[in-house]
């Protein structure tokens, strides 16, 4: 089991008021799964994603990543978990605007202390994997939205993590580019990468093998009747 979250609670302090965001969430994901998490904005899905991505800590509960309890890890060790075992893809790509595609992809490799020559090689291969080998020297401003997101996916995958976390990966893309990104996810999943994706788009979520719903901080396997968790997208 790659993800095992038990009884996760998360409260935020707002003006001395404890606001519960996640309530008693338990979630298991097996290796090689492709999971979509749906929910309206404010439902807590990004918070859950941050906890899964070791960017945030829950108020209470337990979380094992590939059998290892990560909540007891120090900041430094969490950095290493994020570096080697998790890949992140964001809605707004988050590329370094002044760096070439190749340099953007090799950024995590430099954090892993890999020598320049090997960095270039591996980043080049990762770009090949997302079909952008010919755009290696391009700056983000010279790339289309879809290409930017594929560079971001190459960056997420360059350290060969087992888990890919995507937060609204098609949210800023037109339908054609969105489809390309989803095809890429499918290909990665076929190669054995576990994918957890947040979306509020039903059509995007339908690409996944399993769909979960978050409403008001609680998680459901099925969409509870009467509550709108997503909207019809154009994909």
């Amino acid at each position: 089991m790659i993800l095992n979250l038990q009884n996760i609670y998360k409260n935020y302090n707002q003006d001395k008021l404890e606001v519960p965001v996640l309530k008693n969430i338990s979630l298991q994901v097996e290796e090689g799964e492709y999971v979509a998490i749906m929910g309206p904005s404010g439902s807590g899905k990004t918070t859950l994603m941050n906890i899964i991505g070791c960017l945030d800590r829950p108020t209470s509960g337990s979380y094992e990543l590939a059998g290892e309890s990560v909540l007891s890890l120090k900041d430094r060790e969490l950095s290493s978990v994020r570096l080697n075992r998790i890949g992140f893809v964001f809605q707004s790509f988050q590329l370094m605007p002044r760096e070439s595609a190749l340099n953007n992809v090799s950024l995590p490799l430099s954090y892993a202390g890999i020598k320049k020559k090997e960095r270039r090689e591996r980043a080049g291969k990762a770009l090949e994997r997302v079909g952008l080998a010919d755009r290696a020297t391009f700056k983000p401003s010279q790339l289309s939205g879809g290409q930017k997101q594929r560079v971001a996916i190459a960056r997420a995958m360059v350290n060969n993590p087992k888990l890919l976390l995507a937060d609204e990966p098609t949210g800023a893309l037109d339908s054609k580019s969105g489809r390309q990104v989803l095809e890429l996810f499918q290909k990665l999943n076929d190669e054995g990468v576990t994918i957890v994706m947040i979306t509020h788009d039903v059509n995007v979520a339908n690409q996944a093998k399993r769909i979960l719903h978050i409403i008001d901080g609680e998680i459901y396997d099925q969409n509870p009747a009467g509550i709108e968790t997503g909207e019809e997208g154009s994909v």
Partner: protein
Amino acid sequence: MFENLRLSFQGIWSHKLRSFLTMLGIIIGIAAIIAIVSTIKGTNEQIEQNLIGSGSNNVNVQLYQGDWTIDFSYESVPQGVPVISEEILREITDLEEVESAALYRYRQDYDGVYYQNTSLSGGYVYGVDRDYFITCDLLVQKGRGFVDKDFTDFHKVAILDEDSANALFQGENPIGKTIEVRQQPFVVVGVVTKKDVFEPVINSMEDYYTYAQDSSGKVYIPEAVWPVPYRYDEPQQLVVKAGSTSDMTGAGKKSADILNGYLTVSDDTVSYRSENLLEQAKQIQQLSESTNRMLIWIAGISLLVGGIGVMNIMLVSVTERTSEIGLKKAIGARKTMILGQFLTESAVLTSLGGVFGVLVGIILAEVISKLSDMPVAISIPAAAAAVVFSMVIGIVFGLIPSYKAANLDPIVALRHE
């Protein structure tokens, strides 16, 4: 590290105007300090040059009574000052600091030296040994120098320096002419001149009193015939040539110590002492430095202001790049890496400022020297220290912004658009 440097230069280059304005405080501060230090160094070198002259590194070791040299024109010869023998002299020349040494006696004579009716008033008469001219870097310009026979056969010959030749002969060729020293005839056989003619730079009356050289002229005769115009058994003086300018103090002190070891005087205020030109130079230097030191502190304030400016811009830069920092942390950058990146950027920024500051400072120093006749000397160690110091400023004032960046919460940072 290398990656951080590349990123820093890229960041600085992409905000050229902002980076330049940020550096300006550092540039002005460093430039001011370099200009001041160059002026101090230039003045110091000039003081030393003026006092020591160029190249000869001569130190006189003379017999003192109390704080004054003994003038044998008026005073009697003190008891217990032995003749400086060959052995004693060898002891001195064997000193590590001493290149060569020579013995001499001298008088300032107001009414003793004549050529026909012309008097060399206030001139000096030197009774010198064989090594004197070599030790003092005196070269024969006309005629000949002293030869062994002059000493062994008591030849009454004299050699003039240029000043005395001019004063006595006024352009006439002095070689072969006879001059009188205390009514004794001496035949002029040569004219000598200093190997390196050195004119001290004199900018004020004060400088004149401190540095002006006596130009009354000198007449040299072999020591063997000294007793002819003057007295027997007058104590000898010593002049040593030190191996280098920095050895002058040591050479003088040690030689004086050796000579004093042979004294058996009853009056214990009588002793050999070396003139210490370096020490004298240092005292004058300290006087001139103390005023300029204040200026360095004032320039230091500019550096402080510059440092605060750097801190301010770095804080802005951290805020601007919040989402970049968030992303980097999300994909696995550790705190220390973020800290390193921002510290490097800040240090590169101020180091560049330091380099520009040194260049501007050098130009400023040259301009000052052109405009005001102040001597300047660029000090390489000071320039290097200035660059290192500006790097330290960058690190110190970059600490707070870098620390802030390193401790940004990645979630907050990522949400920041």
